[in-house]
């Protein structure tokens, strides 16, 4: 198992403190900051250059969630609504680390340690949490036990990856900005397998996503909002008042949306409530300079992912039909081989080898795991017919099948035994690139 930065066991604070009552229904967690650039981390910068604090709004008054910490942001509430994960700095100038704080008040407990920034925590299943940790290759996703133990990396590409939510299906919804691809939303299982784009359309700059009670995902695109629904392959525009929205949206108990909003460029951002009616006006809830709303309420625990990673070398990847694509028209019969690419330590693309593509478009390869991968289709003369632009990865022992090259999540497979498996059950082996 790939181990990331160790997370030290928690040190219980023995100092006595008074514990207040849990906030009533309707309470809200939010971040107050003079300046907020939610995407700065994707460029390696600080999202809160002027500092920030997480506050609890309850009964019309706000209090600091963690008064002993100098800087705090990124509140994530536990499913039972008793504790909060935050990214925080004990003193200004220190790196961001993940802390856990009782919602009712009490001493914070540091759960990550290190010289690098760790931000954007979310409660995951089985007593674990997901967060982003800064490395030499950018922010990467990790999952670790809250009680201490080894962290597992979930992302294996150069670039910046930030978690946006743990979906009700247990997958991690994250946003990624990589050198090769437009900023977009992706999902990955809690063991780092099954990474895929949320919609295979290389859509318009999506980020700051959240899951709604309906299961829809709402996210920022440009300065507006849009959403994915289970029924549609494309994104749906969200009709809200004109203005600027910043950071993730949350859903209140009433079904109304909460978002950091300002009507004009000179105004301060307030967390506003948006009745879901076309002509409804936003109602100020917290602010000014308030962001990252998190309604206080208990919710269903996240289900765990029963990892199916096998005890195998590398990963086995099967393509059912390379001719299936919703964006590129690859003439039937034109593809003879697939070339598999990876990346060396210097970030340069390296060809790992080639495998035959059957007449039905199927091919079967064993690739290195935990490495960048992409496919390129070649004709009989070895000329490129189509090539992936973005990279993906597979975990050790992962076995995955795709319908085609760029088929999209809306395309279910046809029930045909792929020719390649009728000819052989052994994948063409691609070895790890040498440096």
């Amino acid at each position, binding site marked *: 198992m790939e181990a990331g930065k160790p997370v030290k066991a928690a040190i219980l604070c023995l100092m006595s403190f008074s514990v207040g009552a849990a906030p009533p229904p309707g309470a809200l967690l939010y971040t107050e900051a003079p300046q907020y650039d939610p995407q700065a981390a994707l460029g390696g910068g600080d999202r809160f250059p002027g500092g920030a604090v997480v506050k609890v709004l309850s009964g019309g008054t706000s209090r600091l969630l963690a008064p002993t910490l100098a800087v705090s942001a990124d509140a994530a509430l536990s499913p039972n609504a008793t504790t909060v994960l935050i990214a925080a700095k004990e003193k200004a100038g220190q790196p961001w680390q993940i802390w856990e704080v009782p919602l009712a008040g009490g001493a914070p407990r540091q759960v990550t340690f290190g010289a690098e920034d760790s931000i954007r925590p979310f409660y995951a299943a089985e007593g674990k949490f997901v967060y982003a940790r800064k490395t030499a290759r950018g922010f990467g996703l990790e999952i670790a036990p809250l009680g201490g133990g080894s962290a597992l990396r979930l992302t294996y590409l150069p670039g910046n990856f930030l978690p946006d939510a743990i979906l009700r*299906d*247990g997958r991690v919804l994250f946003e990624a900005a990589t050198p090769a691809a437009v900023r977009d939303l992706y999902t990955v299982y809690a063991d780092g397998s*099954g990474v895929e784009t949320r919609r295979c359309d290389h859509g318009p700059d999506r980020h700051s996503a959240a899951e709604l009670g309906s299961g829809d995902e709402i996210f920022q695109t440009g300065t507006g909002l849009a959403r994915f629904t289970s029924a549609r*392959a494309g994104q749906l525009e969200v009709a809200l008042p004109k203005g600027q929205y910043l950071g993730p949206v949350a859903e209140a108990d009433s079904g109304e949306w909460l978002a950091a909003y300002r009507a004009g460029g000179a105004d301060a951002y307030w967390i506003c409530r948006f009745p879901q009616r076309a002509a409804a006006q936003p109602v100020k809830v917290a602010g000014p300079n308030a962001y990252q709303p998190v309604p206080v309420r208990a919710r269903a625990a996240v289900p765990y992912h029963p990892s199916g990673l096998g005890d195998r070398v590398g990963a086995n990847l099967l393509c059912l039909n390379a001719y299936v694509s919703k964006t590129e028209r690859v003439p039937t019969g034109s593809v003879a081989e697939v070339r598999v690419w990876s990346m060396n330590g210097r970030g340069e693309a390296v060809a790992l080898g080639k495998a035959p593509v059957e007449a039905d478009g199927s091919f079967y390869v064993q690739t290195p795991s935990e490495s960048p991968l992409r496919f390129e289709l070649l004709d009989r003369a070895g000329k490129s017919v189509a090539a992936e632009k973005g990279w993906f990865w597979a975990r050790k022992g992962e*076995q*995955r099948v795709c319908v085609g090259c760029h088929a999209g999540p809306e395309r*279910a497979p046809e029930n045909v*035994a792929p020719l390649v498996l009728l000819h052989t059950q052994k994948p063409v082996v691609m070895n790890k690139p040498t440096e």
Partner: protein
Amino acid sequence: MPFEVGGTRTRACRVETRLDAYGSPVNSALANACHPKGHERRVGTRRGTHECARHVILGLFAAALLGFAGDSIPPPAAPAYPSPIEIAVSADGSRLYAVCEGTGEVVEMDANAGTVARRVRVGQHPKSVTLSANGTQLYVANSWSDTVSVVDAASFKVVKELATGYEPNAAVADAQGRFLYVANRMSNDISVIDLARGVETKRLLAGRGAAYLELSADGQRIYCTHIYPQPGPFRSPNESEVTVIDTRRQMVVEREKLENAAGVFHVATANGGRVAIAAEIRPKNLIPLAHVEHGWVIGNSLAVFGADIGGVVQVPIDELDRYYTPPFGLAVTPGNRQLFVSTTGSDSVTAIDLPKLLAYIRAANPDQRRLMANDLSASANYVSARIPVGRAPKGLALSPDGKRLYVANRNDDTISVIDTAAHRVTRTIELGHAVAPTPERRGERLFFSARFAFHGHFGCANCHIEGTIDGLNWDLEPDGFGVDIVENRLLEDIADTGPFKWNGSNPDLETECGPRTEKYFYRAQSYSKEELADIVSFVKSIPLRPNRYRRKDGELTAQQERGKAIFERARNKNGAPIDDTNQCLGCHSGPHYTSQQLADVGTGKPTDRSPLVDVPQLNNVVLNGPYLHDGSARTLEEIWTVFNPNDRHGVTNDLSKDELNDLIEYLKTL
């Protein structure tokens, strides 16, 4: 040393008699399954034979104890749950009739008051209820009794029992009320019964698992669907059919092919019979089951065909991240505005805007029509609502004005009443017999539910249709891609047949249904410890259905006797001894005809990691096709005519064709 099992043994079996998983008393054929009368068993050293003897001894001991206590003390009866599976509405809309397969009855309800009015007992495991054209009679197909009960709607009494083929699943009368058509699920045919004379006059060949019938609005056609796919070449796409009968000529006039469909359930017609719609599942069994998302396991679909369509077009009802499975019951509102589909595992009814659906299909070119079945975003164009109802919704029926939809919720014994305009449940009718669910009943609910699989994609009952099979072989991922293809096996009476899985790697049902299912099928957090115990309890309680090939008196026919002699022979036709391990009884012995060991019978394929396979039980083996561990034999015959060239799966190459037929006729009786 053979021993004869007689009355004492029957008595011993009786002390173990109980209500089966469906609430019906286990019938005598089942009670005798250990040693059917006239069957001799050798006492040997094999585990199965010992098991058999142990059962007899324990039975005698128990019988003796009962003798002390007095024969009048009956065994504690398990509660029976109505389990309504289909529903019909009287022509004036005032009466509802729910057929309850758990209690073997039809329940009459007052549609306006929402109360139960009367009950009438029918046969075992009734599966359907329909009304005669004039509304005076109800026809109830009794699947285990091989009869149709005719119930007088006025007196609410059974007035006639009509004999059918094996396992009648549905019955529908023609428009004139002269003939009744009955789909026989096990004999794969359709009985045509003269209602005046009460006798079957014709038998029409259907496909495998003939199941549901629909009379077209003009009365000229009857459509028949099938819950199992047709047997086809190994690893080839599945195919089912809708058998179309001309009611005037009483002939099959068309067989609409449903590509890649396996389980096909109800069929409905619209637009004056110019459109027909069948609820179907399109399994993805030929590709490795490596994950679940993106419709990887099953496509929950509708097959739309007829004069207004031209060809068969298959459309999904699923979405990208949510599945509605399996589509079962159908109802079309008057005026053809709405189509309702019950989705049993999802505890919901899907409402479809029928004109939008038809317009969507008509607007598509042939290529688009072909691809539609696998487009998970298509349903957004025609699905108008998903309506939550009770547990395991099955049959649907509309009030005559189309304003109310009645839904039979099999697993919580209720009828949901839906306002078809508002798309919400306005009333729930309880069918009574409310008792706390037993572990078996709780397990049954879990068995039908799709909520545990990733995105609610499927449940146990999707592949083990009503505890049986799907007639398919699957490429399961943990063994590798394209290797260890496995056939799906019957779940009836399997409690004592472990180990499980074709390679015998699961020692018990807890392993089979627990971690294995969660990791390699559902791919999502599934059963709690308590739920797992419940589902195992249910699976263990699934009874063996009556064997239709065994005579009621337990005696074998002459042909079956000859086959039995072959099954039990120790020498080939030349008189040479057959090695103990290569005699049929060498592996297929004991009450379930399995040694519960692994054996290499030469049927391994290059794609198998090991030639050793778990010796399967043979009870009701006739139902379990395709055969062999990977489903490569389409029929029992092919096991030996195609896959036993070297006599490693028993010595059979010395047999004549007739002798092989004798053997097979005997196997059908097991």
